[in-house]
């Protein structure tokens, strides 16, 4: 994404609340507040597993196929499954049309997401096969890589692929000197720093950590703590979304 062109909007307002100065963000959120998050699994009938994840205006669809026979055959590994990831932004997902061809950024994100997923999927259970993960950004408003990884892990769980834990991601940023959770497009454009984080909360592992900009050591520690809290919340929503799929069937079954 390009840097902040034009006049900089007011991103942080300081308000008095209960005798304390509180930072309010341009969309009315507090510094440590997530955007409204919506998740749904099993949205595609042709894929083995699928999920739709929304972080505010960011909307990502993920589909998983496999484990299936690896094509081309020489890609297959004798002792485990290969994971293939494709992170892609739809041409209509941004304010200005994006060319549909994969950009350098998309190739890189596909790789970092694949590496994050490889750490949790039990690939050794399915030797000589391939697991394909497709992530399509339908609408972009910042934090698409973390929304994509959250969606991918839900889709994998929906496809019945063995994983040590679910993966949840969120980005932390520094806007006007304030550390904020789950930054959106405008904040990202004018931010001093942007740090996407993905974790496997139950394993206590960090699976993806990128940092764009400058943070001091103390700020980094605080930012990680902020991300961890956000990820815990997202993780709970993920589990709810997966459970909901089966609860709905029970209700349908009860009608008859």
């Amino acid at each position, binding site marked *: 994404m390009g840097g902040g062109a034009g006049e900089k909007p007011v991103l942080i307002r300081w308000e008095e609340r209960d005798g304390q100065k509180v930072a309010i963000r341009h969309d009315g959120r507090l510094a440590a507040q997530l955007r409204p998050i919506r998740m749904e699994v099993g949205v595609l009938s042709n894929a083995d*597993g699928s999920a739709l994840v929304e972080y505010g205006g960011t909307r990502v669809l993920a589909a998983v196929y496999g*484990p299936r026979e690896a094509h081309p055959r020489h890609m297959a590994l004798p002792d485990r499954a290969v994971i293939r990831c494709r992170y892609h932004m739809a041409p209509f997902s941004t304010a200005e049309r994006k060319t549909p061809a994969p950009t350098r950024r998309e190739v890189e994100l596909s790789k970092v997401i694949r590496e994050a997923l490889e750490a949790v999927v039990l690939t050794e259970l399915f030797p*000589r096969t391939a697991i394909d993960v497709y992530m399509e950004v339908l609408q972009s408003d910042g934090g698409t890589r973390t929304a994509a990884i959250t969606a991918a892990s839900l889709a994998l769980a*929906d496809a019945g692929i*063995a*994983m*040590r*834990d679910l993966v949840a991601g969120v980005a932390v940023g520094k806007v006007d000197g304030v550390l904020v959770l789950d930054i959106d497009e405008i904040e990202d454009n004018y931010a001093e720093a942007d740090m996407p984080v993905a974790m496997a909360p*139950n394993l206590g592992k960090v699976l993806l950590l990128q940092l764009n900009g400058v943070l001091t050591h103390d700020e980094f520690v605080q930012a990680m703590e902020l991300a961890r809290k956000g990820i815990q919340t997202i993780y709970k929503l993920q*589990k709810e979304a997966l459970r909901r799929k089966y609860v709905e069937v029970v209700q349908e079954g009860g009608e008859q």
Partner: protein
Amino acid sequence: MARIHVQSRSIVLPGDIIAEGNDIVVESPFIERKGNQYYATITGLVNVQQLENGKYKISIIPLEGAYIPKPGDIVIGLVKDIGLTHWEVDIASPYKGILTIQEVLDRPFNPAVDSLKKYLDVGDYIVAKVVAFDRARDPLLTIKGKGLGRIVEGSIVEIKPSRIPRVIGKKGSMVNMLMNESGCEIVVGQNGRILVNCPNKDLEEIVVLSIKKIEAEAHTTGLTERVREFIRREKARRGV
């Protein structure tokens, strides 16, 4: 002392903690141990059983997932390709089945004179048994044995392979009930394909709908009774 964190027959998700402590016997590849905690790695129904010696046995029946062959499984396959001395069979799995000529014919076979096409052609469905599968090679099939061979009549219903244990039921309770109530002949393949052979079209439709119902509601309790009721109601409605 072992602590069990879940109720038996409840749904677990990847990363959910199932049990903690010693005296736990794990009977599933889908449970991981970290320290002395046991985690689920797949979406499924958990089973907790207290053994006579006071230990707990925990296992997971997956609710989703592909079919992984196991020696001894009965599968329903579709012949996809013919080689010189073997057939390649699609068994709805990440691994394709191999059926060699020795597992079909009792007599010696000369590929120069005889053609495999005479016995099984592309597009034929077969009921086969998995003889060997060791993860390094593709599963070997056989059609020698009672009830195995080319399928000549009936229809095939395809469902998720992970729902097959529910279609069979405890010691075959569900499939036996289906056969008794409908009078149809049913062969259940472990790979998610079910062969249904009925005296008439109406009964076949009822059985197919029942199987689809089992697939959709596999994780619920009291399913056998609900399906029995469903069949009786449908039979009365259609007058068969």
